[in-house]
């Protein structure tokens, strides 16, 4: 059974002329970490909304093709059935926070599933710990900064103990250290907890290094899908679809052009450092090491 299986999916929002998703076929395995890259209007948010049935149940439009989440067709089952399977985190944390305290916010989901009190307490602490927000239990979510709000929103999704986490540009409002923290949370979820993750992004910088797969989207269409290295090695291709390429892949591509080679391929700062020390800075006459 796949975590997600889209077959020839098209979706058009009510009142819109264009297909927000246009003949997209995509399979996500359990435990896989897939980053969907595309600019505004590429269809990546629409794809997120399909994963727990918000499309077509809450958002109207014309849906064609088949969408299955953990083997169940979303169009035929109620949204509630997917609530414990799929946690969704949106771009704007304010659109999903509404409680008086951080703790209530994170406890809200499991409370509504009638999870026993002790276990709720445990889940709240676990989720807050994972997102680095322990100790904020009694703070009002609205007194928090944008980045902190987003972490609370993620904790609220995690407290449902979903099997798959879907995040639509979760780092949108975070500062650089907040971003780094968030991606290390996501990496932990993948590596230590085996969580299936679908991450929609327009910036390829952080997720590049640890995604199992990158999906490129433009104008509702899937342009490609594969491991990070081949998918990200051409910065111009990414820029053409409105995605910020990782800076180190730009360095690699500029070096390849200047030195008439194709041997450079970097996904992380560490890789770039190693590659440059091995083949550029050491070849220097009388090079100092």
């Amino acid at each position, binding site marked *: 059974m796949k975590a997600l299986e889209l077959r020839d999916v098209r979706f058009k929002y009510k009142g819109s002329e264009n297909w927000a998703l246009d003949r997209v076929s995509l399979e996500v395995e359990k435990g896989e970490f897939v980053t969907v890259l595309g*600019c*505004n*209007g590429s269809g990546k948010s629409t794809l997120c909304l399909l994963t727990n049935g918000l499309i077509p149940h809450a958002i109207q439009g014309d849906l064609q093709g088949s969408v299955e989440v953990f083997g169940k067709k979303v169009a035929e089952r109620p949204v509630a059935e997917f609530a414990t399977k799929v946690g969704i985190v949106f*771009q*704007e944390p304010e659109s999903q926070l509404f409680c008086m305290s951080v703790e209530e916010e994170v406890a809200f989901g499991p409370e509504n599933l009638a999870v026993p009190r002790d276990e709720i307490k445990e889940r709240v602490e676990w989720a807050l710990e994972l997102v680095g927000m322990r100790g904020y239990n009694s703070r*009002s979510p609205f*007194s*928090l*900064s*944008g*980045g*902190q709000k987003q972490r609370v929103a993620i904790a609220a999704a995690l407290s449902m103990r979903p099997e798959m986490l879907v995040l639509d*540009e979760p780092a*949108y*409002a*975070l*500062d*650089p*250290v*907040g971003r*780094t923290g968030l991606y290390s949370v996501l990496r932990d979820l993948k590596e230590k907890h085996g969580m299936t993750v679908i991450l929609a992004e*327009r910036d390829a*910088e952080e997720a590049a290094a640890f995604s199992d797969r990158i999906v490129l989207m433009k104008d509702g269409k899937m342009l490609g899908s594969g491991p990070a290295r081949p998918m990200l090695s051409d910065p111009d291709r990414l*820029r053409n679809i*409105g*995605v*910020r390429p*990782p*800076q*180190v892949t*730009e*360095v690699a591509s*500029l*070096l390849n052009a*200047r*030195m008439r080679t194709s041997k450079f391929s970097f996904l992380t*700062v560490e890789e*770039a*450092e190693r590659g*440059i*020390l091995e083949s*550029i*800075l*050491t*070849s*220097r*006459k009388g*090079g*100092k*090491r």
Partner: protein
Amino acid sequence: MIPSAHGIPQEEKIISTRNLKFTYEGGVQALHGLNLDIRHGDYVAIVGGNGSGKTTLAKTLNGLLKPTSGTVVVNGRPTSEQKVAALAKVVGYAFQNPDHQLFCSSVEDEVRFGPQNLGYSEQEVRQKVERAIEAMNLDKLRSVAPLSLRLGERRRVSIASVIAMDPQVLILDEPTTGLDSGESLELMDRLKRLNGEGKTIILITHDMKVVAEHARRVIVMANGRMILDSDCRGVFSDLAILGESSLEPPPVTKLAHRLAKHGISPDVVSAEELVVQLMKSGGGG
């Protein structure tokens, strides 16, 4: 001790804060005594992590928030003695989320709303609206409903509606957040032009790539305090300051730092700069 611009003559300052403190209802203190002077025509980036106080600071500069103690002086008078409407003619503030300020049914109405409410004559209003629409390249969108636009366009509308009030200072809160790389470049280019025409620009951001490419002066905030006030390169060469303020240099700057002992300058901010240096250092060998 923070190096600051206390030597600036009074008449060159458009904004000046002294021992500015602000505490939110409920007791969270967001600003801990700031002394800051901003000159006419400056292009300043205020950077800092989430929760560092940069948005609170911005809101005190245009009078949306009044200091809990200390003063904010705008054009020679404390904000506590000025009405928000009067201040709006001097200091314009574009919110981080443009949807917090858009409500009209057409772009033109949206842009017109501010100057109309400030009591300008119809002719003046028309002139200011046209200038703002031109400045943000919205001519083709003037009759469209703002909320039906894409985020990058909505951001330009929200900035145009602030420009239309013809303030001397423009404060932009995270203007590039959520924009594509192309949209972001266009917006920054238009802001540069406005600065060239004499507007003072205050950019609140944590996008260090934007800071590296545009600002002339950078103020770093952490925990409600200013921890650095310096020119742009100065900030990037100081990783400790960046770390303290939840900021990180762009990845190429980090890479350059790692390669510094091999003769690479640690303050490069773009892939091109780094590659040029690498070619000089050893690429030919």
